[in-house]
């Protein structure tokens, strides 16, 4: 059993996301989604339009490229800009930016706003449920090896130079007990300060089939996805990294 205190006092979480993809009712239009803000104007005073674009290249005897942009929903920001939720034609997303408070604060707010979205969008079907956490781990320099801090890193042959000035790694792992998957994305990013090397560890745990339909079952699944995310996170870091978060 780990001797480290969790939740970590200085957790490296830069963003927590709860994301539900849906098929909305056919009689609901994108304009209707603006109603999600009704009564929430003081908590989420900023509204932005969400557009989605598509670039399609069809290769045949003659290549044809098409681009299109479509208004798909709205984004609402809280006064301090830390809470953001999106109401789109393809789903609902709740984000919490750093500093991350606690799951017990974040999750109920997401559930409350989902309830409003659900009453407006009247989704006929839920197609994907996800919990995503974006972490930035600032490793103090100098250090010898990424493996001092991370247990999931690119393996470089000992016959090659061991220095890395950049890497991007994306792993998709099935989580059989959850009927879901975890996408782990790890990349070097611009350092937060000159005396650290910053690595983003992005964990997206989701399920796309055998999805529940009742509210309680949906949120029980989200709890399970969050537990799975924690396991993946703990599996990716070393005790040396845990010391950084205390």
């Amino acid at each position, binding site marked *: 059993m780990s001797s480290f205190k969790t939740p970590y006092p200085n957790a490296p979480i830069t963003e927590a996301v709860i994301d539900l993809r849906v098929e909305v009712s056919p009689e609901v239009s994108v304009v209707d989604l603006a109603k999600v803000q009704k009564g929430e104007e003081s908590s989420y005073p900023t509204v932005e339009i969400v557009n989605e674009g598509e670039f399609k290249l069809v290769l045949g005897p003659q290549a044809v490229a098409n681009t299109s942009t479509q208004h798909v929903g709205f984004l609402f920001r809280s006064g301090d800009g830390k809470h953001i939720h999106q109401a789109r034609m393809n789903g609902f997303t709740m*984000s919490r930016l750093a500093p991350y408070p606690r799951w017990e604060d974040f999750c109920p707010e997401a559930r409350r706003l989902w309830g409003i979205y659900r009453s407006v969008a009247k989704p006929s079907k839920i197609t994907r449920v996800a919990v995503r956490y974006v972490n930035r781990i600032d490793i103090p320099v100098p250090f010898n090896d990424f493996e001092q801090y991370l247990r999931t890193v690119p393996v470089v042959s000992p016959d090659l130079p061991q220095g890395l000035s950049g890497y991007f790694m*994306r792993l998709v792992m099935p989580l059989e007990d959850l009927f879901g998957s975890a996408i782990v994305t790890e990349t070097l990013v611009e350092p937060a300060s000159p005396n650290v090397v910053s690595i983003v560890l992005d964990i997206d745990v989701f399920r796309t089939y055998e999805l529940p339909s009742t509210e309680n079952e949906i949120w029980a699944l989200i709890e399970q996805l969050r537990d799975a995310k924690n396991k993946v996170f703990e599996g990716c870091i070393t005790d040396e990294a845990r010391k950084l978060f205390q």
Partner: protein
Amino acid sequence: MKANYAIHHPWQTPGGVPVVLALVCFSDISYAQSREASMVLAAEKEARQHWSERTEALIGDIQSAEDFSYSHLSPRQVSSITCQYKYVGRMRPRSFPLDE
């Protein structure tokens, strides 16, 4: 000379329907909103572009490979003879002396 099977366009199904080779979606606001999530997205785009550039070269190779000329192989030579039969009448048993 091209063999018939080499004339089809590589990006068409047998029914002649063009194949959508690339379908790339972009969004002005991604589902995650943080600066770090944008960095991940940028790194992913860079990796995708890197992959795409190399794939284009590969597709070019596939296309040129599909555009080959058919090399005729001569059939194996065999020997033959021509013969003609001529009717000369009904056959009759030859007679042989019994003491031979």
